[in-house]
């Protein structure tokens, strides 16, 4: 790949990820408030967002730290809360060219978030490493600065605004999963089924599972069943 193409890919990635950056700025705000409750300084909150880029994992981590958990407990919780990235990373390995060098693979992995993954799978064909770096160059500052601002401004804002901001994270998830559902009825069906199952296992019979474990188990069981009931047609490779 020529240098010119690398620049083009990089800037296209940066531009495509601007909505992610703005969304992260807003949602990072809520994350900053959680970090403050766990006793983090502004710099520590910034650093933890900069080195993790993981909404659900960070949220779970801060909650445990606030409760005085051990390092090992935090490690296990992060593993459980972020286990979906293990699956996304597997999926991402199929979305990059098989001859991508190790160094690029290691760098792409650093900012493999739900939204970056969503944008990546929406690309036709393979994702170029420099496109991924462009997305990260927009997303990481949005997330870490949002966290910083949230920690600083969180207790200035009235409670109803903080509550409203907490919905932003879920709005982002919806924005990632709904557009493909419009094109593919199987995905639409899966989303509705997953939400119903999630509701049943958290509200009706929770089996004593934590939220993280429940997420992993439901994901594996439902996706596995779907893979057998609705195997992929060949044309799904590039456009989905």
């Amino acid at each position, binding site marked *: 790949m020529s240098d010119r193409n690398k620049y083009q890919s990089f800037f296209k990635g940066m531009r495509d990820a601007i909505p992610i950056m703005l*969304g992260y700025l807003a949602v990072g705000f809520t994350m900053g408030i959680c970090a403050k409750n766990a006793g983090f300084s502004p710099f520590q909150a910034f650093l933890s967002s900069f080195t993790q880029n993981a909404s659900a994992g960070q949220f779970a981590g801060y909650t445990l730290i606030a409760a005085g958990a051990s390092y090992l407990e935090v490690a296990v919780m992060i593993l459980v809360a972020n286990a979906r990235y*293990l699956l996304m990373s597997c999926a991402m390995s199929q979305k990059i060219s098989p001859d991508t060098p190790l160094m690029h693979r290691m760098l792409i992995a650093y900012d493999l978030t739900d939204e970056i993954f969503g944008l990546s799978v929406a690309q036709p064909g393979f994702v170029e490493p420099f496109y991924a770096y462009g997305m990260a160059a927009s997303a990481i500052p949005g997330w870490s600065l949002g966290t910083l601002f949230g920690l600083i401004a969180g207790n200035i804002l009235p409670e109803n605004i903080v509550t*409203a901001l907490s919905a932003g994270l879920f709005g982002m998830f919806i*924005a990632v999963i*709904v557009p493909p559902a419009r094109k593919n009825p199987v*995905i639409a069906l899966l989303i509705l089924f997953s939400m119903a199952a999630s509701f049943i296992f958290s509200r009706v019979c929770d089996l004593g599972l934590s939220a993280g474990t429940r997420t992993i188990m439901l994901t594996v069981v439902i996706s596995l069943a779907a893979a057998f009931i609705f195997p992929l047609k060949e044309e799904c490779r590039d456009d989905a």
Partner: protein
Amino acid sequence: MTRNIYIYILVMAAVTYAIRALPLTVIRKEIKNKRIRAFLYYVPYVTLAVMTFPAIIDATGSAATALPALAAAAALAWFGGSLLQVAVTACLVVFVLGMII
């Protein structure tokens, strides 16, 4: 026992990175198996759906604000709203309904 926040940050970052990097660096070939490919294709949609509902009700503290916000976000995303527009709409619906209810 006092614990160091920087060690917490290091633990969280190391575990998170290991999870993301392992499959991406280990799986070097294209997976040919149709079922595995279908499984990996469905995973993100299922996991995000599971994480969104009913968790959004806990986040806003009320089904009366969360459900309309979810519906509005889904409708906007369906008709082509951007990530930012959808996220902001969810926040606005919760904010406005929170004032009324």
